[in-house]
């Protein structure tokens, strides 16, 4: 359905997307995963014919985005990162306008509009000005706009960004409901989201595809093992190290530093083992004071390194919390802007 080959997009000073290739089958839901600035939006903009690629080709349903943009545009529904809404229009007026420029027959338009208002649950606000709607409703109107002309392909750029947890769940359910009839590409930097909605994941970082995999394979990789940071108050670091190494499930103990008699270690577990209770007991039973014990934080960047590097490198189960923190931080930054 979607075929991208050697796609490169270069701006004046930097390369946004560097020679990426991927394919999406009809009816698939594909997650486009990557940190901010990885090139997700640029790739989507090329696919939606908003901007032409510098080199390489992209085609949708057999139509090239540069040679046949009109045919591609007819088959694509697009929800940009900020929903493209006119605040001074009523929801129904807006959908009517979008329907017309998307080339929907005026006779079919009222039915299409009532279909999508029902699907996106925006019936109760259809006579309201878009400018007066809450963020969640705006996102839904944006989604309604994208599916209005019943496109074969749906391209959603961070469809859940900026929503509250309740709205995120609703939006995800909505997208899942659309999955059967449409081929969907959605971009996100939220790992659980990919897990819940998508069948296939394309991971992109710094303009390059670093991994293309099914969700099962990806999650099993990410959930493999655990890295724990331990801080112990004791006199002798080699004694502590050898004691920690004896705990069941531990594969490696690395001594980091000591400060005022507090010794700091990083402990890695074997695949699928929970070692934190064992570590705590070992330290206490040896008569040392356990100062701190926590799962190591890995940044999203490090996850990408993990994914591109060898499979043996451990990634903690705390990963998901970390990713959530990253997102919360990114959101806070966005809002402060």
């Amino acid at each position, binding site marked *: 359905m979607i075929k991208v080959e050697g796609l490169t997009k270069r701006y004046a000073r930097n390369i946004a997307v560097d020679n990426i290739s991927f394919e999406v089958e009809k009816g698939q839901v594909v997650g486009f995963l990557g940190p901010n600035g990885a090139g997700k939006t640029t790739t989507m903009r090329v696919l939606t014919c908003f901007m032409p690629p510098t080199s390489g080709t992209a085609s949708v349903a057999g139509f090239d985005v540069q040679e046949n943009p009109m045919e591609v545009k007819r088959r694509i529904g*697009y929800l940009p990162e900020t929903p*493209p809404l006119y605040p001074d229009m009523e929801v129904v*007026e807006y959908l009517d306008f979008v329907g017309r*420029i998307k080339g929907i027959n005026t006779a079919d338009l009222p039915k299409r509009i009532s279909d999508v208002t029902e699907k996106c649950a925006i019936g109760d606000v259809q006579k309201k000005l878009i400018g007066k709607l809450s963020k969640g409703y705006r996102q839904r109107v944006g989604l309604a706009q994208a599916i209005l002309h019943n496109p074969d392909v749906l391209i959603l750029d961070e469809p859940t960004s900026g929503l509250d947890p309740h709205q995120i769940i609703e939006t995800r359910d909505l997208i899942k409901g659309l999955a059967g009839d449409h081929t969907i590409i959605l971009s996100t930097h939220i790992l659980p989201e990919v897990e819940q909605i998508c069948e296939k994941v394309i991971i992109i970082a710094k303009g390059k595809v670093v991994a293309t995999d099914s969700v099962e394979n990806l999650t099993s990789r990410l959930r493999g093992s655990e890295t724990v940071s331990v801080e112990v108050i004791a006199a002798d670091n080699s004694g502590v190290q050898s004691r920690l190494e004896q705990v069941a499930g531990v594969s490696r103990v690395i001594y980091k530093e000591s400060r005022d008699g507090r010794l700091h270690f990083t402990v890695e577990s074997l695949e699928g083992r929970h070692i934190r209770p064992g570590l705590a007991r070992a330290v206490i039973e040896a008569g040392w004071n356990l100062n701190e014990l926590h799962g190591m934080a890995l940044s999203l960047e490090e996850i990408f390194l993990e994914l591109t590097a060898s499979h043996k490198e451990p990634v903690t189960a705390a990963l998901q919390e970390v990713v959530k923190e990253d997102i919360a931080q990114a959101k806070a930054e966005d809002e402060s802007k």
Partner: protein
Amino acid sequence: MNTFTICNKELQSYFRSPIAYTVLALWALIGGFFFYFGLSFFVQRSMESAMMGQSMPMDINEWIVRPLLSNVNVVALFLIPMITMRLFAEEKRSGTIELLMTSPIHDIEIVLGKWLAAVSLYFIMLLISVLHMAILFRYGQPDWKPLAVGYLGLLLQGACLLAIGTFVSTCTSNQIVAGALGFAISLLLFVLNWVSEFGSSVTDKVIGYFSVQQHFESFSKGVLDSKDIIFYVTMIILGLFLTSRSLESVRWRA
């Protein structure tokens, strides 16, 4: 069809925002001011000439319509950037340009639609000042033909400056910048004929030829000259062409 859809949406959004009302109110106020004093002046002069025993009544076209058209023309110059400044700048700022440019419509349809909406609002403005002229017809016998030519001139000159303003609006996502730049360019185009008034070289004449005001003069006299019509139509096409090229460059730069 798509052009009409865009035009319709744009015109509606003029009337949903305060822009249309502000522009129309300012136009009615300032136009009314000029009309009132033009008329008062005329009444006074014609009473004086009647007392001095001149038998020929003064020409309404000569004494009211022509100066009024010139004044109104200057007022329009100030209001036109207010009409065009948001056309593309606002879409670029809010990101709705992505919706338009990823919909199965051609860029030229977007450009034409938006420009036509601006021309329509300008046309409604002109209709308000037609009310003043209706008063003249009620109490006097002005010749309607030069008046109609004058209005055609106003419309053509307005359409030409609106096309240029539309182009300027594609160059920025800031409405204020688009408005200021549009005004500066319109004003320069308006007074370019000063160059040919002070100098007489070929260069001066060529520069002076680009003055929109110079081409309006014959319209205000009631003279329909194909040369001037061609000038305005060419400028309109140039403005719209530049707009569509600039819109295409948005795709490359984004």
